[in-house]
């Protein structure tokens, strides 16, 4: 029997409507009632959580772990360590691997690898075969193999009929649909937001409408098929407006937001630094403001990183030629705490924890994100006011493609506990 007691933390557990300074007992990897203290055969290990928040382990439902196929960018193992270092106990990996996660054997391979990782790694499956947007992937088999959702992330099904059938089929097998919203014709060869900076720099622009068209499509299909569609990495004011209206009507639609889309604007691209190249691109200040409002009023309900590792040699090329994406697991919590709580005061810490715990757990119908007695002791200890400086060189991730190196942030995770075991501490 192993036991740990976390003393004097501010326990925030939105699922159980709990917010109080208390001790928390872990016995044999599960959350246990304090009453069990007296029955322990030995003294429990103690963790002092004075001035810290103790909350359910955070969940990031949008990461790229690159395996199988691109182990030089990240592995499931290194990505899991990065997640732990960012305060995450559960991460959901995207299917754009090689081979793509569009079949049950690839899912089995990923789950096998994930079993050895230091945090919970849950796979998603593809919507379409080889993410090509032409034929349905075996969604039922993928569900049986244990995917928590289907998505073609990195790609977007352009054929609305195919997408409609995918959403209908997914309802039958009970998996939610996540969608990367990008109309290929409107986005074209765009590498940055279409606007002032693309005009000034002559870089091909991808307009806000290229995202909004698909967000609208998804709203219509969610209504038509009566199944939930979750819009990944929402970036534009128009998308926020569409989602807000649709959710007010009761449509089963939701949206998530990445930290870089509220921390930065497309002004950053003037350096031609490819660490500012991501998809969807950094948008204008008006979009950032709308995203903040969307977070504040609940339109955007989930926070994610879109952790997208790339090797230095891949990113250190011409802007046009560089792959999209940045790593984010080890900076996202710090950025969101810094921006949403401290700088813009858009939400409180309880809501932020909800957006990282019960909201994603509900969407994916997974048993995580609570501190309920008897449940797995996955938890994150957060120092909400701790000041720190991002040092990319110290990251656990196998890649270094972050634009936030050197940035000073307020707030971070200080300890990550998975199944009662500390997997990372500051």
């Amino acid at each position, binding site marked *: 029997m192993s036991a740990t007691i976390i003393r004097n933390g501010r326990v925030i557990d939105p699922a159980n409507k709990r917010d109080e300074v208390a001790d928390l007992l872990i016995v044999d990897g599960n959350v246990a009632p304090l009453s069990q203290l007296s029955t322990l055969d030995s003294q429990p290990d103690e963790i002092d959580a004075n001035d810290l928040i103790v909350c359910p382990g955070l969940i990031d439902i949008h990461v790229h772990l690159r395996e199988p196929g691109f182990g030089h960018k990240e592995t499931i193992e290194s990505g899991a360590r990065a997640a732990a270092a960012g305060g995450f106990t559960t991460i959901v990996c995207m299917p754009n691997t090689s081979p793509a996660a569009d079949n049950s054997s690839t899912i089995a391979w990923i789950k096998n690898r994930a079993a050895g990782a230091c945090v919970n790694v849950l796979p998603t499956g593809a919507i379409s075969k080889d993410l090509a947007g032409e034929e349905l992937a075996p969604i039922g088999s993928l569900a049986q193999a244990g995917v928590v959702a289907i998505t073609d992330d990195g790609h977007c099904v352009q054929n609305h009929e195919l997408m409609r059938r995918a959403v209908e089929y997914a309802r039958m097998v009970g998996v939610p649909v996540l969608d990367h919203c990008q109309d290929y014709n409107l986005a074209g060869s765009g590498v940055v937001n279409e606007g*002032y900076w693309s005009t000034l720099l*002559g870089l091909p622009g991808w307009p806000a409408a290229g995202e909004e068209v698909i967000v609208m499509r998804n709203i219509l299909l969610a209504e038509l098929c009566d199944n939930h569609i979750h819009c990944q990495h929402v970036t534009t004011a128009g998308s926020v407006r569409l989602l807000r209206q649709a959710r007010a009507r009761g449509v089963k639609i939701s949206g998530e937001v990445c930290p870089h889309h509220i921390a930065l604007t497309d002004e950053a691209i003037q350096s*031609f630094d490819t660490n500012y190249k991501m998809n969807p691109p950094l948008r204008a200040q008006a979009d950032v403001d709308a995203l903040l409002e969307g977070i504040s009023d609940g339109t955007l309900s989930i926070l994610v990183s879109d952790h997208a590792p790339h090797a230095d040699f891949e990113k250190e*090329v*011409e*802007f046009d030629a560089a792959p999209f994406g940045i790593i984010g697991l080890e900076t996202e919590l710090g950025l969101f705490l810094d921006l949403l709580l401290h700088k813009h005061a858009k939400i409180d810490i309880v809501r932020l924890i909800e957006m990282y715990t019960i909201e994603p757990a509900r969407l994916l119908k997974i048993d995580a994100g609570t501190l309920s007695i008897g449940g797995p002791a996955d938890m994150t200890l957060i120092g909400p006011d701790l000041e720190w400086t991002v040092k990319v060189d110290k990251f656990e991730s196998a890649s270094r493609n972050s634009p936030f190196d050197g940035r000073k942030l307020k707030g971070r995770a200080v300890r990550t506990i998975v199944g009662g075991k500390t997997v990372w501490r500051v």
Partner: protein
Amino acid sequence: MTTRWTRKDLLGLRELSADEINFVLETADAFKQVGAREIKKVPALRGKTLVNFFVEPSTRTRTSFELAAFRLSADVINISASISSLTKGETLKDTARNLEALHADILVLRHSSAGAPQFLAQRLKASVINAGDGAHEHPTQALLDLYTIREKRGKIAGLHVAIIGDILFSRVARSNIFGLVKLGARVTLVGPSTLVPREFEKLGVEVSYKIDNVLPHADVVNLLRIQHERQRKEYFPGTGEYTRFFGLTKQRAKLLKPDCLIMHPGPINRGVEIDSNVADGLQSVILDQVTNGLAVRMAVLFLCGGIAT
């Protein structure tokens, strides 16, 4: 007026001050005069190696840089995309570092990606001269355009310059806009609404879709080459309709003030953006632009290649 030049690279006109632009133009005066000498060659860059690194085809700009380098006594190597190892999958960074390992002092880069010169300038000791990057900047073309306007009209401030054509995809247009606005010209962009989005107004210029309203007031018209290639098919219906709405036809040329200059960065599509006779007419300074391009490029190579790095 700036009295010293301190840049090793020329990446674009957006980063230059008005003083620096004038500094280059004055230096170009001196180099233009070299062309009138019995020996049209000076030893300024003797012993220096210039690499013309063209990762996108160009004959005019490459030739102009090459001749400018010869006249400055530099040694020149030409590398184009077809023969360079870029096509074999080597990265731009590796190729450039190889060139530097061969002690290239000046790298003149033409590249299809915006920002490629910045990318190299940050990583190389050699001077990097942008000879056109994507739709971003083409600083020496804009400098020679400015030089030609200044030479023919004696000034730039207060002049009304119309830039006509495919602005959206044009690096020549962008560099001209930055330079002209800095030197106090009034700039009007003219072309199909798909190729001249209103967003350009935020750069301090006017946008017009009615060429006939602009021509009578222009002191300079700069016509850009219009192409109806695959990637442009969605932007305008065709060259016939383009000429009807935006071509500088013989009829339209009559709207111009008698002293209005007609410019074109070349190569010209005769009968498309400009009538053939108008291109060869008295108001045309298209060949002066070519001559001045040599002086301007000599000045740029001398300045950027002539400072200690």
